[in-house]
């Protein structure tokens, strides 16, 4: 006798209705959401937004703000505003891509480690421990040395750095969900492993996944800036906030704005995403909302 | 004789996020020395809230009115320093969830001992000795060894005994037991209730026993207060409550409970409808919409607790049975 298996309603999936409302209810959540959206917009519309090509040079080196160059010109004659805009774009590109990549690798690994356990879990755990044994920056420095410095390689390096945490988080959630009754029911119904993992357990890990992503994104932004600062990230002429900071080092006393602008941009971006992540976390789990 | 606890018109209202809920409404009762007063009612009827109000353990969003006379102190209007003195020393509480109410990272001995150290200035050694005595008092075997153990190493029943030991440390006059056996197996329940009764006899302690389990009340209580939607709807000795309940709600509760021997045939009778949540204090009887004895006066006036001259009080215009010297 065959019985069709209904798709079980996930108890662990966040209540979508009212999520946006709760998110935007706190002023912090609302403001940070707006800032994040704004930054994303800047990144997407960079070619339209930037007044000039960021690599194009002008003759008035180190000029102050003017009508045509709103934020001034840097030491090589490039328009600051354009560089800032494209810099934000690089940062966000690297940030989002590295998080997505770490998810693409980390989520399946975490799922199978948590679900199958025993030797699969041992192997995955030892591998992640090994990666974790190297402080993120050392790892990135090493990777850059091997792969050569570039925007893409920075993304890969950061992604590799995030994978272990992603695996740990997903593995933890999977372990908890595996023992839930709805999974046992599905197994008893003869559902295949693949369906079980991807249609039943995976949705339950989404809240933790989102939380992890919101923590990793600001870290990626700062990480990319750090690597570029060390010279291991994007190479000229691609602008990056980190490179701008590094270039500005010589001009601390003469033209500090060259250092302040990219630094402020990094801080604002990181802060906005951190706050947004916080608000998202609170909205997803009302129990944790601050009284 | 003056009662150990005299509660008059206790009212508790919660206001959160712009909504107000009236949890307890003009609750009054007395508790005599050495008496076990059972407070029964469904979940949400306000019994736990009223008890927490007595010891000042309600959240700050709670507004409390009324008087709770405990010796020279009015508990509801005492300052926090005085309350802190009384708590643990003269009034003690045993909660329902023993695992949640014991600190997982401190030893049992430490948790019992700190009550004595706080209120009686005992030294570490004295506190440890007293803790050991208390564990023996609550009939936990191998007391000395248990002192060094942690809550998670004990069974549910033993943990509850530890909670009781903690409560008794300073020989309180009043013990508030909030659903002490609800989380335990039936056989373990009996042991705990036996223990409480024994302790009451030994120490002349008064117990406010809060529970929704009528069986526990029948076994252990001397008098009973029945609560519905935040109000006291009936108060009487335990025998009267069970043999001749006056308030239709009490009668309904008894009809809905499976008692050996009573109503051997037929279904358990449900009370139709659900308990209302009050936004403001009730102006009419809250039970009326569900009541089989509903009459004209119920729509006009809120019944006060009426005494039938035998000490049996019921807040009803059309009580189920009236005992007149019967």
């Amino acid at each position, binding site marked *: 006798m065959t019985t069709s298996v209904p798709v079980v309603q996930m108890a662990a999936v966040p209540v979508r209705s009212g999520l946006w409302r709760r998110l935007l209810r706190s002023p912090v959540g609302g403001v940070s959401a707006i800032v994040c959206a704004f930054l994303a917009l800047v990144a997407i519309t960079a070619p339209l937004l930037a007044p000039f090509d960021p690599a194009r040079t002008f003759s008035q080196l180190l000029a102050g703000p003017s009508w045509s160059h709103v934020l001034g010109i840097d030491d090589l004659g490039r328009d600051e505003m354009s560089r800032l805009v494209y810099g934000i774009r690089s940062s966000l590109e690297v940030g989002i891509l590295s998080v997505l990549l770490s998810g693409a690798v980390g989520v399946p690994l975490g799922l199978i480690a948590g679900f199958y356990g025993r030797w699969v879990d041992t192997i995955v*755990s*030892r*591998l992640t*421990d*090994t990666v*974790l*044994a*190297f*402080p*993120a*920056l*050392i790892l990135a*420095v*090493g990777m850059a*040395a*091997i792969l050569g410095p570039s925007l893409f390689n920075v993304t890969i390096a950061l992604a590799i750095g995030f994978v272990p945490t992603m695996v740990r988080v997903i593995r933890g959630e999977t372990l908890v969900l595996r023992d839930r009754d709805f999974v046992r029911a599905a197994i008893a119904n003869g559902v295949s492993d693949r369906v079980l993992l991807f249609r039943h357990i995976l949705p339950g890990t989404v809240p933790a996944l989102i939380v992890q992503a919101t923590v990793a994104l*600001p870290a990626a932004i*700062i990480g990319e*800036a*750090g690597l570029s*600062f060390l010279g291991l990230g994007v190479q000229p002429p691609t602008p990056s906030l980190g490179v701008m*900071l590094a270039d500005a080092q010589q001009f*601390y*006393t003469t033209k*500090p704005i060259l*250092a302040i602008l990219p*630094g402020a941009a990094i*801080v604002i971006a*990181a*802060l906005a995403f*951190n706050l947004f992540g*916080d608000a998202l976390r609170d909205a997803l789990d009302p129990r*944790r909302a*601050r*009284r | 004789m003056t009662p150990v606890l005299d509660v008059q018109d206790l009212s508790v209202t919660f206001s959160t996020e712009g909504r107000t809920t009236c949890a307890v409404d003009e609750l009054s009762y007395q508790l005599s020395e050495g008496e076990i007063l059972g407070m029964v009612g469904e979940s949400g009827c306000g019994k736990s809230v009223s008890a927490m109000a007595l*010891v000042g*353990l309600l959240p700050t969003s709670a507004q409390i009115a009324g008087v709770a006379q405990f010796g020279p102190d009015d508990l509801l209007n005492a300052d926090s320093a005085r*309350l*802190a*003195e*009384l*708590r*643990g*020393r003269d009034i*003690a*509480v045993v909660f329902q*969830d023993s695992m949640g*109410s*014991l*600190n*997982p*990272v*401190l030893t049992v001995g430490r948790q019992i001992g*700190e*009550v004595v150290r*706080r209120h009686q200035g005992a030294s570490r050694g004295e506190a440890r000795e007293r803790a050991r005595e208390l564990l023996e008092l609550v009939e936990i075997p191998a007391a000395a060894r248990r002192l060094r153990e*942690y809550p*998670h190493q004990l069974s549910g029943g033993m943990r509850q005994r530890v*909670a009781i030991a*903690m409560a008794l440390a300073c020989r309180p006059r009043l013990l508030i037991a909030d659903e002490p056996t609800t989380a335990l197996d039936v056989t373990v329940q009996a042991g705990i209730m036996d223990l409480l009764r024994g302790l009451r006899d030994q120490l002349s302690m008064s117990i406010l026993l809060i529970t929704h389990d009528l069986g526990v009340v029948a076994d252990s209580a001397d008098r009973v207060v029945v609560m519905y939607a935040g109000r006291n709807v009936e108060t009487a000795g335990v025998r009267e409550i069970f043999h001749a309940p006056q308030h239709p709600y009490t009668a309904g509760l008894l009809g809905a409970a499976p008692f050996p021997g009573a109503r051997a045939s037929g279904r358990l009778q449900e009370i139709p409808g659900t308990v209302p949540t009050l936004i403001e204090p009730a102006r009419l009887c809250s039970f009326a919409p569900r009541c089989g004895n509903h009459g004209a006066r119920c729509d006009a006036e809120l019944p006060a607790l009426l005494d039938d001259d035998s000490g049996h009080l019921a807040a009803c215009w059309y009580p189920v049975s009236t005992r007149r010297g019967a």
Partner: protein
Amino acid sequence: MGRLLLRRAGESLVTLFLASIVVFVGVRAIPGDLANTLAGEQQDPATIAAIRHQYGLDQNVLLQYFHYLRQMLGGNFGTSATTGISIGQNILSALPITLELALLSIVIATIFGIGTGIVAAVRRGRPSGWLANVLALLGMSIPHFWFGVVLILVFAIAFPILPSSGFVPLGTSIGGNLESMIMPAIVLATGLAAVLMRQTRSSMVEALESGYVRTAQAKGLSWANIVFVHALRNSLITVTTIAGLQLGGLISGAVIVEQVFVLPGIGKLTVDSVFARDYPTVQAVALIIALGYIAVNFLVDLIYMVIDPRIRLRGAIA
């Protein structure tokens, strides 16, 4: 607990072993012929061949690996390709600096982070609690290199109280040493302090709203007793775990901070040797760092076991 300890120790060893493979493969994965790069300016075939032999690069890969392992285990790290100085020597002089930096940062971060966390938890809902939270978020969002730069601008250039760079060893002058370390330590501490503060606050809030705190109140215990003995003891468990996870970030941060403030520590040694293509140094230093990190993690697990009686007695990490 003994069995659990043994298991963890075994896992750490396996991880260390795997890490050594990663370092070994990593160094050899760098594009370009190793011998060529090590030869530097003297690009004649004879020198290159000699170098190849000297570093054992002409041997079978597996043999090279075992040779590498034996070297590391024996503490013989070889000599730096760029300076010719014993690598072991380099490490020995650089390590204490980074350790001191890390220690100072941890102390600052703990005092400040846990302290503000407790305040934020006890005063939650009030403006001071909210302020503490914002400060913590800020701490997590400020990149080390920028913050370091700002501090230098303010305290070394605008108001010249502290040195902008350089290191004064403890042996020479304690005051001088502290002067050169205080800014880097503060910068390094910010990230850790922020995380500690948020975690302490979150754990304390959870503890303060728990059943056992309600019991403690019902027992009439003092406020100080409830906060510091009951609530804090429980919170420290999670806080320690999280802190342990952050220690890796400390070393990462040290790399940058040492660059900005020019402190000759392990971080700077690593970066410099990578840039200078000094592979023997890279091989040794990377492994040392991995070893240190694995050891610290093991220590954190140990502390965790000591603090939480549930783990100690049940023998399982909850």
